[in-house]
Structure formats: C-alpha cells, structure tokens
C-alpha cells in the first residue's frame, strides 16, 4: 500500500476540507522552468532508465527528462527494469531545486499509454485554468 500523503498521522480525523494543495500536471517546459521549485507536482512520462533509487521519465513537450528519486523501496519496486522504454508512470512528488523529483506516489500507467494525446490534453488544459490547477 502506498504511504498516505495526508501527513505523518494517518489515524488523525480527516478534515472534509482540502488538506493538500492540488498537484498540477507539468510538462517538460514547466518542470524545468523553476516556477514549481519546492512544490508538489504531477509528472507523467515514459520510463527511460532505472538505476538504484533513481529513474528517468521522458515527459511531454520534449526537453530533458525528469529525474525521479525515490527513498521508499515500495515505490522503487514499481520501476521494473523490464519496463524501460515501454512503461509509463505518473509520479507525484516534490520538485527540488536541482530539478530532481522526490517521489511520494507513483501510478503505473501501463505500456500502451499514449503520450502524444497526454501532451495535447496538457496544453489544452492550460487554457482553462478554472477547470484545472
């Protein structure tokens, strides 16, 4: 089971109000722009490489890949080496100043995920801020 993002006390009564700010979806341009530094974001991409506690994801919009870092073995386990080049993931994490993404949660999006459509969805969504983050 994934660690709850609700903080260190999962048994505390949960407020009905939003306790965590929304995690916006970012493409390569947003990711490397520095404007989200220190914040939680959502990155979706194709798995390019896995090495120890790090993985690289190719994001939509070209550009340098996202360098994902996970401290948690259960997260690392998702990034199986056999999925390099074919697997896709959505990673929610904190974007560090050095452009690494500290992963907090991972979703395995499978091997038939359409990154082209995803990229277009992302750019369309930016034109409707009242609907998206």
């Amino acid at each position: 089971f994934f660690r709850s993002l609700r903080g260190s006390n999962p048994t505390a009564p949960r407020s009905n109000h939003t306790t965590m700010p929304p995690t916006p979806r970012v493409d390569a341009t947003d990711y490397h722009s520095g404007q989200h530094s220190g914040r939680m974001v959502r990155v979706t991409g194709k798995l390019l490489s896995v090495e120890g506690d790090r993985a690289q994801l190719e994001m939509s919009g070209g550009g340098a890949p996202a360098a994902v870092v996970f401290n948690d073995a259960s997260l690392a386990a998702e990034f199986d080496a056999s999925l390099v080049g074919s697997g896709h993931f959505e990673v929610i994490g904190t974007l560090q100043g050095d452009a690494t993404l500290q992963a907090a949660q991972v979703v395995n999006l499978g091997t038939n995920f359409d990154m082209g459509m995803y990229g277009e969805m992302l750019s369309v969504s930016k034109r409707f801020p009242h609907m998206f983050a």
Partner: protein
Amino acid sequence: GGRERTKAAANRDIVSSIMYGGGAFGGYDAGGFGGGGQFGGDQFGGDQFGGGGGFVAGGGDQFGGQAYQQGSQGAAGGFNVDNSGPDGKAKNAKEKQSLLPVTIKQLKNAPSAASGEQNFTVDGHELHQVTIVGLIMTAEEQNTNLQYTIDDGTDDIIVKMWVDQESEELMVQRRAEWREGKVVRVVGQLRMFNNSRSIVAYNIQPLADFNEYTFHFIEAVHSHLRLTKGKPPAAAAAGGAPLAYGGAGAPGGAGGAPPQPALLSVQQQVLEYFKQFGEHSEAGCTIAQCHEAMAASGVSLEQIRNEVNQLVGDGHLYSTIDDDHYKGI
C-alpha cells in the same frame, strides 16, 4: 475524409467547431474526422485503443457513443452522454439523465443552483450525475459506507459509497480494487454537508486503460465548451443586448444561473481565431481580419488589439511581419 490530420489539428478543430458552430469561417468540415481509432465508449476496458485516430466531434454531443461500458467486472449500466438541444441547453427530461464529465476543481467551485441547496450548476447547467477520474489518496471503511479521498490533479474531494447491503465477497473485492494508489472513475452526485462538498458515488470503477485518464480531461473540456457555446455570434448580436462573457468560471453568481449560457471570453475567442487561421500563412492573420471575423460580437478593433497585446505578453501569440500580423505559438 482522406485528409491527414495531426492530433493537434484535430483537437483545435474540436474547439473551433464547437465555438463557432462548425464551418462558420469556412475551411473545416463540421462533421466527424473519421479515420481509425475513434474513442468509442466501449473501447475502454479493452485493448482496442486504436492508434493515431482523430476524435469523434462534429455536432458537439457525439463523444464516442452513448454508453460507458465499464470494464470486465460486469456492467455498471449504460450512461447517456448529455444530449443538449441546439442552443446548448439540455431539454428538461434529458437533463435528468445527463452525466457530466468534470474536474474536481469544477465541482468544488460550482455555485448552488437557484432550485435548491443540494443542487449545483456547472457552466449554467444544473448538475445531476457527474463523473470524475482520479487517484485514490486515502481509503477508509466505516460501518455503512466506504469513504475515499480522490485527487485528479485539479483538487481533491471526499467520495462516499454506501455499502450496508453488500455481501462479504463483494466487500473483499472492493477492498482489493479501491485502494490508495488506484486510478478510478467515479459516477455520482455532488452533495454538500456542513459546508463541505463530497460525492455520493453510484459506481466506482478502476481503470483498465489509462488513456481513459487522459481522455476524461479532454472530455471535460469538450463538455465545458459545448455548454458555454451559446448562440452563434450573428444571432446573438441581432438581439441587441451586450453579450455576456463568462468563460472564466461561475455563471451569474449568487443570484442563480443566467438564462443564457455564457460565451467564451473575448480573449479566448481572439486566441482561437489566430491559432486556427494564423496557420495558413507565414505571416499569420491581421488584427483587422480577426475583427471582421468577430464583427457580429460587437467587439471593437481596439479591444481586439488589447487582447492581442495581452496574449502576446502571456506568450500565446507572436507578431510576424509587423504589428498587425500575429500567429499562435
């Protein structure tokens, strides 16, 4: 048709054909795109995700068939996609059957309808059933209901599903499927208790094909555009009254929804014009051409120039051969 379209062009066509009633500026088919890989409602949950095709668009309510076939766990029942009338407003009886794809942010910001406290509106349309797709962040089991917090990247919301009648076997299955870290589609109704909003779910279904995750957001945008399209510019101007520019959010405010769905903002229309028609030449289009195209909306040349300057400042347009010619980024 035999034309090759990139997906980017197809998406822009969806936006413009909905905004301008299809073909108002000439040059684009109002009909569907054909080709392989249409998003049929029954293509999710299987592996029939056809590559490279366009989206079924056209009249605005033909988004891939009438029913969501929900995976292999047995039918959750068919859900009708909202069949609005030609003026963008749903007919009364059909409204009750409507299922609106939305983002959680839209639900959190939906104003209350005039008709009652437990009724809300999105884009002037009273909500009945809504569907969201998001990630389960927390999962809790209480005596008579299962409770989840679901986050779709735009916001998060509590989702409750009543289960007092469920068999133990079904409960075991649910606990396995509806866990933290799972992406699910929820169908239900928006409710408010003690000033906090939640969804009471009729159905929760884990996704089998994660392209449905992407698709849901495209569909939510499509739905928003369809509901806010309003009358074609010519007919609206004939009425003589100034047009309402909604676009950015709540229709009408606390007094209840206005009788007409709001148009897209002037800026959005200007942007769409340049993005769509600026493509045809190196120099793009001129402010004068945009003004002429939007003449029926009564917007002045100066206002269009102001919008263009803002759009340039925000990085959406750039000037080409001179201060009059622009193209979309």
